[in-house]
């Protein structure tokens, strides 16, 4: 194959996308859904990781007093806690302050929602925000704190961290299976779509072979076609991912305390990864779709 054939073969590939538009559209659809779900899994796991980092970074634990413990006694408990070895900081969080924080988080500026929960009717107990010198000794220290009279519960963030780790594993696993399943499904759909539209192209391939075209020559337009479809799908799915994520981030931040990661700095990387994945899928798909016919000769291909 000569270099100057490439121009011609490239044009043929582009033309084929249009002449086989049903298949082209179907392939783009399949690829986009596959890439989108993959992207969703990756972004989700990324969020969980970042949430875990925030928690680990805080390295702080809340210790709640029993409900009716007078503030003075609570402060005494605080003194007890500070005496323990493993305590780095110990900060008193009065219940009034805590309820105010909640109001702020919930966006209840006027305090209408939690009105009547301030002062004596405050349902929250007093608490201490404690950080440890050595987190690995957490269990012992927690046990010592629990023994102090007046301590009700310890809000165990490491438990949350463990849960998140587990969730992340589940998501990774689920993501893996989803991607695997989707790849199989998309391969199935693609090969079926190809099978349906392949008849005319099968004739075309056998004719090309019978007038002396090499397999490489026949393959190039198919690869070009696959690559273009793949790049198109990559661009489309990254665009959709950003759009959907943006919408979801908007609604998630307004209902929960959790703040999702801003993925816009990764936009370039995601686009690139999607385009590459799409290109690879497309090219491989293009090669696979014709390899069956390239192996055969003339009549065998169409049954002349």
């Amino acid at each position, binding site marked *: 194959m*000569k270099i*100057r054939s490439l121009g011609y073969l490239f044009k043929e590939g582009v033309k084929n996308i249009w*002449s086989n538009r049903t298949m082209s559209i179907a392939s783009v659809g399949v690829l986009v859904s596959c890439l989108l779900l993959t992207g969703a899994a990756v972004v989700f796991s990324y969020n969980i990781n970042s949430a875990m980092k925030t928690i680990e970074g805080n390295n702080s634990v809340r210790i709640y007093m029993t409900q009716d413990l007078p503030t003075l006694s609570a402060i005494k408990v605080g003194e007890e806690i500070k005496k323990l070895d493993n305590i780095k900081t110990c900060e008193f969080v009065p219940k009034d302050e805590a309820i105010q924080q909640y109001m702020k988080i919930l966006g209840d500026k006027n305090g209408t929602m939690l009105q009547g929960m301030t002062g004596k009717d405050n349902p929250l107990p007093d608490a201490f925000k404690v950080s440890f010198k050595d987190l690995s000794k957490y269990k012992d220290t927690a046990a010592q704190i629990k023994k102090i009279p007046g301590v009700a519960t310890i809000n165990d963030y490491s438990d949350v961290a463990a849960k998140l780790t587990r969730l992340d594993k589940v998501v990774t696993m689920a993501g893996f299976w989803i991607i695997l399943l989707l790849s199989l499904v998309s391969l199935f759909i693609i090969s079926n779509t190809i099978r349906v539209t392949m008849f005319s192209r099968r004739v075309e391939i056998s*004719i090309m072979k019978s*007038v*002396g075209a090499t397999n490489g*020559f026949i393959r190039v337009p198919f690869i070009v076609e696959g690559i273009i479809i793949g790049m198109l799908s990559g661009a489309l799915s990254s665009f959709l991912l950003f759009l959907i994520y943006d919408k979801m981030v908007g609604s998630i931040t307004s209902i929960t305390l959790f703040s999702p990661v801003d993925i816009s700095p990764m936009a370039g990387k995601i686009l690139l990864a999607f385009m590459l994945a799409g290109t690879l899928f497309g090219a491989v798909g293009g090669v696979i779709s014709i390899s069956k016919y390239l192996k055969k000769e*003339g*009549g065998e291909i169409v049954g002349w």
Partner: protein
Amino acid sequence: MIEFQNVSKIYSNGTRALKDVSLKVDKGEFVFIVGSSGAGKSTFLKLIMCEERPNSGEIIVNGRELSTLKKREVPFIRRTMGIVFQDFRLIDTMTVFENVAFAMHIVGASNKEIRKRVPYILGLVNLQNKAKCHPAELSGGEQQRVGLARALVNNPKLIIADEPTGNIDPALSFEIVDLLNEINRRGTTILMVTHEHTLVKHFHKRVVEIHDGTIVADTASQKEEERHED
């Protein structure tokens, strides 16, 4: 140029299409292949173009023993032949021009050469006005001539034509064989399958008759002097 040594071809369904065929065609010959339908004429040609492989015997084309040919070499030996197929084999998503140009693209011709050569060849087969048509918009005879144009466009040393005038009126058939004759005069070897006895009679060429898979008659190839007379 072409040599068959005790070639037999049995299709996978058991049909014995060729039985122990031996034949030699020299460079520059013009051979008519005749015989009733199903006699094995197309099979004979398909063996030459490596579309089918013989079950036994040897086929030598251009000094090359075809059974030693590797799969990836097949396209290159096909390019040395201009082939007119009985079933036309035109690509229907391509125009007449593109179909003929395709054969040139395969061998890596430049766009400039293609733009010059294709219209010239289409003119030879009287299709200059149909260049932009798709095969589906053409009559059978016109499609057949596109196939002929494609076979001629690369100036092959060997032309294999399976009933190239099968769908063409007698006057045009004569014109086409005249064209092939002219090409043959310039040194190209031609194998042409035909059912038209008037053609065979009019052009005094070597005639090979196949019947039921065997060669039953083979006139000697015409002498140089006789060729100049017609």
